[in-house]
């Protein structure tokens, strides 16, 4: 293990990898700071450029955006009560009151320390937990993989259970998209409606790029310029004396980092839940819970440690099972598969250096993001003054030209624009777009494993119930659907009862 870790560290320290992760982190912080854009847009925008890069360098670039985005999101949340990424909303609960009291530097120090600590703790957990999970996953056959995939997509749908039917519809649409084109097993054309262009199917890259790179930016076109009058930073760098002061919350930091990692591990739960759970846990165990919501650095630290632990946590199911936990890791899965690398339990055995390079890269990304924000705090904070519309059209252009560049096919760019329109409609209606992405990504895995399982069982679906791991996963899937629905029903019945 240590040999591989050292080899990974050496690979991560190459000039190409370092340049890639620093650039990715820079882009991540910028898109994280800009409300309404976020790391997903940054990742899909850079995706076409990754095809010219080695897999480890490409993944470092995108991981930089992934982690950097969460670092950046806290800045506008604290200074303007406008979270750059949704999960930073929780940071604003205490961050903005601190800014109003003239203690923006304290809030920013706590948030940065939280982000840094959460990121580092999650990498350590990733290094030790991934091999353990891979060991368990080595016993998986097609029925277990299908059951795990089903569990993943069900969690995604249930994470947005106030929009459950819409989530199912979008999941179905995504799964259907994955069936378009030539079927790999039988070479039969499916749903190409007589067109040659659709025979290759709908690739994940134009779909994701369209939904987020174009769809999200079309939404930005209607936005007004943010008011930045309240932004009041006393100095252009972080006040390091405040940073040492926040170190006394080290227990909260560790606890929040662990919570964030395990929330990230569960598919579909997302960084908002990680932030919120970490914040609530910190509040419960605090000596001064009454300060939470009034402006305590501990709240900022807990929330940021929670959400910044999510990226490394989300890497665990991705690397060991090949199942992405969210849309961001789905994009990473796309990079793996495009480079002919298939995540799963054997990946840790087959590609130990690559995996350890990724671990070291995430570690260094956290350091890079911390240093960048600590030394260029004010210049980064000023980015919010750039009009959103100016950015939107530029991102759209790069996305569309970038997607054409991948296969030099105008059809792919047209797919991206079509998905952009769909993405715009869905985002405007606040439908859970993540279900659609998960459907596209997991469609092929689910279908292949389903057909393989049925082949083993000679067409008998009972195969899923006769193997212990598969059965356990199916029972878990049923429980995560049944329990919340039962609770909702009970609550509704109580509310309807006349008092």
């Amino acid at each position: 293990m240590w040999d591989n870790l050292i080899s990974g560290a050496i690979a991560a320290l190459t000039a190409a990898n370092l340049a890639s992760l620093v650039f990715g982190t820079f882009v991540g912080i910028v898109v994280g700071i800009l409300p309404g854009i976020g790391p997903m847009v940054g990742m899909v925008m850079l995706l076409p450029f990754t095809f010219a890069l080695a897999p480890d360098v490409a993944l470092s670039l995108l991981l930089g955006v992934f982690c950097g985005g969460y670092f950046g999101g806290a800045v506008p949340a604290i200074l303007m009560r406008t979270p750059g990424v949704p999960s930073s909303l929780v940071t604003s609960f205490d961050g903005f009151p601190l800014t109003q009291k003239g203690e923006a530097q304290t809030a920013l120090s706590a948030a940065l320390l939280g982000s840094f600590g959460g990121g580092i703790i999650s990498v350590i957990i990733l290094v030790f937990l991934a091999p353990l999970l891979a060991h368990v996953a080595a016993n998986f056959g097609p029925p277990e993989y299908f059951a795990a995939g089903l569990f993943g997509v069900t969690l995604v749908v249930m994470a947005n259970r106030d929009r459950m039917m819409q989530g199912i519809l979008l999941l179905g649409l995504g799964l259907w998209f994955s069936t378009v084109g030539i079927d790999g097993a039988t070479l039969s054309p499916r749903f190409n409606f007589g067109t040659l262009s659709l025979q290759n199917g709908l690739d994940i890259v134009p779909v994701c790029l369209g939904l987020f790179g174009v769809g999200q930016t079309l939404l930005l076109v209607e936005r007004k310029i943010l008011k930045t009058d309240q932004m009041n930073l006393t100095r252009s760098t972080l006040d390091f004396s405040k940073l040492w002061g926040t170190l006394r919350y080290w227990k909260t930091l560790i606890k929040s980092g662990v919570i964030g990692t395990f929330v990230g591990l569960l598919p579909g739960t997302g960084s908002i839940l990680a932030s919120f759970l970490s914040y609530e846990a910190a509040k419960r165990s605090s000596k001064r819970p009454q300060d939470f919501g009034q402006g305590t650095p501990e709240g900022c630290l807990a929330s940021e440690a929670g959400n910044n632990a999510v990226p490394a946590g989300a890497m665990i199911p991705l690397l060991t099972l090949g199942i992405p936990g969210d849309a961001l890791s789905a994009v990473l899965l796309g990079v793996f598969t495009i480079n002919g690398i298939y995540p799963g339990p054997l990946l840790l055995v087959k590609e130990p250096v690559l995996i350890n390079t990724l671990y070291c890269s995430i570690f260094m990304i956290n350091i890079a993001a911390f240093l960048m924000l600590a030394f260029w705090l004010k210049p980064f904070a000023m980015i919010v003054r750039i009009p959103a519309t100016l950015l939107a059209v530029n991102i759209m252009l790069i996305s569309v030209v970038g997607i054409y560049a991948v296969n030099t096919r105008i059809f792919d760019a047209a797919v991206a624009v079509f998905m952009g329109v769909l993405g715009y409609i869905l985002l405007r209606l606040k439908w859970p777009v993540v279900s659609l992405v998960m459907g596209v990504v997991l469609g092929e895995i689910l279908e292949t494993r389903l057909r393989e399982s049925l082949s083993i069982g000679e067409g008998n679906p009972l195969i899923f119930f006769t193997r212990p791991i598969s059965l356990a996963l199916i029972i878990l899937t049923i429980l995560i659907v049944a329990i919340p629905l039962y609770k909702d029903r009970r609550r509704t019945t109580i509310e309807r009862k006349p008092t």
Partner: protein
Amino acid sequence: MNQETKAQSRVHDLLSASLGAFAAFCLITSPWNVDTEGPDPFYKGPLIFPIMVLSMMVLAALPACRRLFSPADGSSWRLDGGGYPRKTLMVLGLLIGMLAGLNLIGLEVCALAFLSVSLYIGLNLIGLEVCALAFLSVSLYILGHRGPFKLIVLPLVMTGLIVLIFKHFLGVFFPTPLIAEWIWE
């Protein structure tokens, strides 16, 4: 479920029903849209998964269809008060125009570029360069940006960067615009 108790815009139901109708259409036509002539039994064949997925979509759309035809009291078509997305549609139109310009002739997009930016455009620039430039300039104008920096300098810099990165650094092939071919011929 929460969504059934809340009176939400009927637009949601319309979209759900449309997706359900699309799924039903694909489900009905799937025997013709999927080649099932192979020797595999049904459970190994290419049709089993699409049928499962499309059926799930149809079932998920049924509550929305019911609400669409018998709406609850107080439900309306009002969405979010965000208004008609006029600017978004214009930018989207330009984006589609840019794609068409990139593939076909670039003439319309060139015309837009000449209208918005009075620049001397050499023959070798027509294609990706003009499309990108026109898209940026006109979009920014539509979105209310004024002044030479935002309408000329920024689109020029951005276009230059895109050409440099995609054409020269990544070596991506872009189709020769037909207008250029006509003139050369």
